[in-house]
């Protein structure tokens, strides 16, 4: 048996896997090989030294800290994926209804030009006239419906519906959701 095999047997002994025959062969080699005897002794001392490290006890309150942080878990536990879907659906529904009840209309942007005189605009039902920022209406403007005014009217403007600033992203989103839900419910 050579020295390399002997070292392997030393490790098998330390792992308590060595057979009786292997142990006999190991002892026979250690009797005649001082180098392997040195390796054998130092390996055993190393493993014995590792046993010096006793267990460290955790703080006594670690158990209660763990138990207090455990989430609720039960038979009717709702999986996070379903919760997320429900939250998105609820949010969509809330936005849609909010848009419906605040009277947000489907948006229609119209390029409006007038070369003076009087112009009458009748937006389609459920739609509004938008005069975007930067646009200028020259002359009088009559709107039989709602108008979103962010541009200019160099004349008088007469509105039978409501006049307010151009809708922002919130209004557009609410309007789109409102259309979606009306389509779903057949209104």
């Amino acid at each position, binding site marked *: 048996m050579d020295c390399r095999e002997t070292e392997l047997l030393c490790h098998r002994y330390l*792992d308590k896997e060595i057979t009786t025959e292997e142990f006999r062969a190991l002892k026979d080699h250690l009797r005649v090989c001082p180098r392997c005897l040195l390796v054998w002794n130092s390996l055993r001392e*190393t493993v014995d030294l590792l046993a*010096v490290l006793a267990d460290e006890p*955790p703080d006594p309150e670690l158990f209660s800290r763990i138990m207090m942080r*455990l989430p609720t878990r*039960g038979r009717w536990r709702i999986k996070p994926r379903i919760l997320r879907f429900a939250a998105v659906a609820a949010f969509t529904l809330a936005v849609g209804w909010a848009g419906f009840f605040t009277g947000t209309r489907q948006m229609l942007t119209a390029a409006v030009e007038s070369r003076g005189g009087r112009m009458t605009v009748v937006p389609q039902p459920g739609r509004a006239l938008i005069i975007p920022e930067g646009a200028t209406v020259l002359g009088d403007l009559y709107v039989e419906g709602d108008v979103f005014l962010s541009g200019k009217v160099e004349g008088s403007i007469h509105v039978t519906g409501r006049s307010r600033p151009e809708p922002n992203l919130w209004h557009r989103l609410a309007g789109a959701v409102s259309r979606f839900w009306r389509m779903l419910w057949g209104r």
Partner: protein
Amino acid sequence: MADGELVARSKKGDREAFGELVLRYQKPIFNFVYRLLRHREEAQDVTQEVFLRAFRALDRYSPEQPFTAWLYKIANNLCIDVLRRRRNGTLPLATQTDQGEIRTEIPDHAHNPELLFAGWETRRAVEEAIASLPYKYRVVTILRHLQDLSYQEICAITGQPEGTVKAQIHRARRLLRARLSSVG
């Protein structure tokens, strides 16, 4: 009650059953994490996180593998994350000496007075020697020699074949032998 039975009850929402599992394994998990991270408070935080993750992932636990091996695997992965963050500098828990060594806290054994009189320098030398091992060797050394796990369990935890684990253990013992040759 066996681990399998406690896990099955925990899955149905029995918090007492999971509490029993925590009581059984919080100490070995804490020691495993503590030996790897060498910082007591952080080890407790990580131990807490191990059990929280285990609780949340109970549905994904397969009874084919031992519950202990599954817990240790979670702990090992968390320790790897912590040590990676330390190396990236986002967790300055370790202090760097002028020689570039990374030293972590000196273990406080005030809560375990026996250790105060049991060769503090020897224990310190052994801890430093283990800490100086490459991570993979450190893990298998702690699992084998300090946690007293079998090679099968260590293979399940590390995901490595038995031959590889044994080779790592043998190599770790040689390295430790060289570092501890002046101690004892």
